[in-house]
């Protein structure tokens, strides 16, 4: 169930990136796809009647898989750093073209390129 929700979240994020024109919303949707993937990974490690994988002496109980949790921990922190950098680029773009609309910015960039020379 959790895995399915994760995939659905990924799909929602993907659709939102494609459909919404505002750059900030696109970034938020990118973060949502990250969250969906991470949820999938954590869900894979979970199993029925599992327990938290922290125990002094682990006996015959079923424990959640700690490997995906550990991988995902790094992924979350990296997501934050990369999202911050992406947001910085979006801010620079908005400063340059004075609009947060992606199609408008594309048109302006195309116009800059057509007039010769780079943006």
């Amino acid at each position: 169930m959790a895995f399915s929700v994760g995939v659905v979240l990924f799909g929602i994020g993907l659709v939102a990136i494609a459909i919404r024109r505002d750059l900030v919303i696109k970034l938020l949707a990118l973060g949502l796809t990250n969250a969906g993937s991470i949820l999938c990974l954590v869900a894979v490690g979970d199993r029925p009647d599992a327990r938290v994988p922290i125990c002094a002496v682990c006996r015959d109980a079923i424990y959640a898989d700690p490997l995906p949790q550990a991988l995902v921990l790094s992924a979350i922190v990296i997501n934050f750093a990369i999202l911050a950098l992406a947001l910085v680029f979006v801010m620079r773009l908005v400063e340059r073209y004075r609009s947060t609309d992606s199609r408008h910015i594309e048109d302006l960039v195309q116009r800059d390129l057509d007039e010769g020379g780079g943006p």
Partner: protein
Amino acid sequence: MIARTALLALLPIVAAIALTQRRRLTAIIGMGLFSFLLAVSYLLLHAPDVALTEATIGLGLITAIYVLAIRRTGRLTVVADEAPGLFVREGDRIVGLEHEILARFARHLGLDLSVQFVPHRDVADLVRSGEADVGAGGWVLGEEAGVFATRPHLDTALFTVGGTKEGTGEGVPRVRYEGYFADLDPKSLYTAETPVTLDLARFLAVQRSDVPDDSVTRHPQPRGYAFVVNGRRRDLHSALDAYIERLREDGELDRLAGRFLA
């Protein structure tokens, strides 16, 4: 168990609602709420390390940097559609009568001027919702709820272009447009089914191409260009009105009009 299923089912709903918001701030806070629910879900999936990290990063830091990125401090935010002579982008600069008026007004108030170009129909929404302080760009007085319109600073007229030629039923030939209308599909600008209404400035820009005279109708009422201000900013509205009035009395308005709209 039921709680976990309900929470997991709630996640896509919250995410979808958050990402379909119009205002950016609402979307950011919605995603913050989503992060919180996600962190609780991780707890229910027996991953406390992940839950803690997700809660602090997703809910704390990421929401914070988004809000810091979109905040506007000490600024006058103007949303405008490009209008020839009034608000035009030239390379890195913006020139035009309305831009000049607003730039002087912002300096007068001690604020920085921040301009964003948006499609014409978004101007009213953004000003009404408060995301922008002033709307400009060849705005013609009409009935708009929730916003104040200043007194018109320049006279104009409305023209309707398009529609079928008299009696023949065929559409007006396609003409080039100058790229000012981000929200108008170029193909539909001059087709038989969609007559389009333009104000004087845009009509003059468009008329450089060939538009048959019998497809143009001029509206009889005199109109004026004005700025729109958020309905809750009464102080801003009266200040802007007073400033424009002062410009008009000094004759400065006519001088600027002559400079930009020659």
